[in-house]
Every structure is written in C-alpha cells, then in structure tokens.
C-alpha cells in the first residue's frame, strides 16, 4: 500500500525527489542494500559449504544451554530469548521514530534509552553464548561437535558460526554506538533546533536492518 499521492504527479520531471524521501534516508537505504549483499554473500557461502558436506552438526545439540540452570538442557531456548530481545528493541526503536515525528523530545529519549538497553542485552547474551561455546572447545579452527549422523565433522561449522554471528554482533555493537550518539544529540536538543528528527529515522533504519539480518542468521544456524 503505497503512500497516497496526487493523481498525475510527475515524479521524474525535476524539482522534487522522485523517491519522496530525504536524501540521507535514501542513501541509508542504499547502504543497507550493500550491507545486505555482504551478509547475503556470507550466508550463501555458508549454504554452499553445507550443501557440499555430507553431514553437519545438529543445532539442537550444540545450542542447548541456558545460563544458571546447570546441566539441564533446553534446546534453542537461549537463542529465542536473544531473538525476543532484538525484536523488542526494534519495537522501541519504531516508537522512538514515532515520538520524533510528533516532536516529543522526552519520549524520543525514553524510547532510545530502551532501544540501547535492548542492544546491550543482546550483546551480553551473545558474549555469554560465545564464552560457553569456547569453554566447550569450539572456536575458529576447532570443532568439538560431531555430525548429526555420528561422523567426524570439519571445522567449517564453527568457522562460519563465529564469523557470521561475530559480524552480526559487530553490527549490533555499531548500532548501539549510533543510537547512543542519537540519544546524546536528542538530549542536547540538536534535533529540536533543526526542527526534525530525521536522524532518528535513519538510525532506526540501520537498527531494524540489524534485526532483519538476525532473522536470517537465526534460521540458517539454529533451525535449518
């Protein structure tokens, strides 16, 4: 359902943006496209290697631990918690964008703060998961898990896992930094002075993209 525009509007005859968005936002979209292809290349190379292997470790066996419950195993519970945190922080980000459109500085600050908390919680979870897998002997070049059919597995599994979740975690980390800068700028009243909160929308696009990538990482590593 596209935006309603006057009938006969000539978008390409000059004088206005044919995309009806601000320049910076359009460029953010194009940056995200290029980033999507980077992640796509990673995930598709993972898929190619997986298709060329005769077997692969079982994610339900590898990712079955949860902090503070000891030896009890709950397959995939921890990673669902991480997914929930990221979706939730996407919601608070949309709320911040909405508050920005209503020029409500206090509300923007509140929602941005919650978004940053969500990002930090996600990073904390990932740090725990990496530490846990590292303690089990998994790292780049080391794979203690055997294949699902009981055969010897290669290190492809751990190499791809740590590279791709690491690259995604790095994106989350930069997102948290960007959101923190936006929070400080909101707090200083910079956006109140310029009269619009478009920077919040651009930071929001980046943050949702991080969530979007996680959806694919989640499927590729934990479900398939």
């Amino acid at each position, binding site marked *: 359902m596209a935006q309603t525009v006057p009938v006969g509007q000539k978008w390409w005859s000059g004088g206005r943006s044919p995309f009806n968005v601000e320049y910076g936002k359009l460029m953010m979209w194009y940056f995200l496209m290029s980033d999507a292809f980077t992640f796509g290349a990673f995930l598709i190379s993972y898929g190619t290697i997986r298709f060329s292997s005769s077997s692969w470790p*079982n994610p339900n066996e590898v990712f079955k631990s949860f902090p503070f419950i000891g030896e009890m195993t709950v397959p995939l519970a921890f990673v669902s918690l991480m997914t929930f945190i990221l979706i939730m922080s996407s919601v608070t980000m949309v709320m911040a964008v909405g508050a920005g459109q209503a020029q409500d500085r206090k509300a923007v600050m509140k929602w941005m703060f919650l978004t940053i908390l969500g990002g930090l919680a996600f990073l904390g979870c990932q740090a725990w998961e990496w530490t846990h897998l590292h303690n*089990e002997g998994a790292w780049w070049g080391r794979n203690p898990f055997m294949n699902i059919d009981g*055969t*010897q597995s290669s290190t492809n599994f751990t190499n791809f896992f740590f590279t791709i979740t690491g690259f995604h975690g790095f994106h989350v980390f930069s997102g948290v930094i960007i959101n923190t800068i936006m929070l400080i700028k909101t707090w200083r009243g910079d956006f109140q002075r310029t009269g619009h909160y*478009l920077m919040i929308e651009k930071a929001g696009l980046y943050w*949702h993209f991080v969530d979007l990538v996680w959806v694919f990482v989640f499927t590729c590593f934990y479900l398939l």
Partner: protein
Amino acid sequence: MSSASPTSADFGKDKSSFDSKAVWRTFWILLCITVFELIVAIVYYETHFFPKHILNGVFVIMTLAKAFFIIAEFMHLGHEIKNLIMTIAIPACLFIWFLIAFIWDGSSFHDLRMRYDKYQYEQSKTKVKPVEHKEEGKKPGVE
C-alpha cells in the same frame, strides 16, 4: 515548480503516518512466527515426526514472512512511494539467482566428492565416538 527544492525539514514534518497499533500488531506477528518455529524445531528434535527437508522449506517461508513484516512495517518501506519500493525490491531479486547458482554448485561439489574422493567418501561413512565436553561447573569468563 515554483517553490525552491525541498529541504530535509519538508520530509520531517509528516506526522500523520505513524500508527503505534500497526507496530504492535507487527510485533505480535513476528513473535508468534518465531515461537511457532521454535516449537516445530523442538518437537522435531524430540520425535523426528516429519522429513527434515520439508520442515526446512517451512522455516524458509516463515523467515521470508518475518523479513517482509520487518521491512514493510518497521522500516516503513511498505508505506513509501512505489519508486522507492522498486529501487530496493528489484536489486534484491538478484538474491534469487545468487542462491540458486551457489546452492546448486555446492550440491554438485558434494556429488563429485562422493564419487571421486575416496577419503571423503570413507569419512562420510565412519562413525566416531561421541566426545564428552562438560563445563564442570565453570562460570563463563573464569579460567
């Protein structure tokens, strides 16, 4: 056009488009899909009730549905004008070719290895003993 070219401020004043109800609806859709995926994955792990490759198809469709909702609602692309939607959607179609070509290549490589690489073929038939990897009550971060 008589007026000067648009500035950023012209795009920042649009407050009519924000709808928090739609945001929460999207949130519930995403959450339900994720919970459903998990339940299916765990039930499959316990019972193996279904061929895995059909299940993988279900997971991929669910993932694409989630991606659609995030892009259309959270990233607001569904509410932009068609020009912008197309400038994103058409290049993204490259992924279809990208995926088919590489997955095909991977599976062909697998077939070749199984046919001509004796070592790989034997490895794929030899079971190994399961390795015990316990944490022995170690806390994360403590060596």
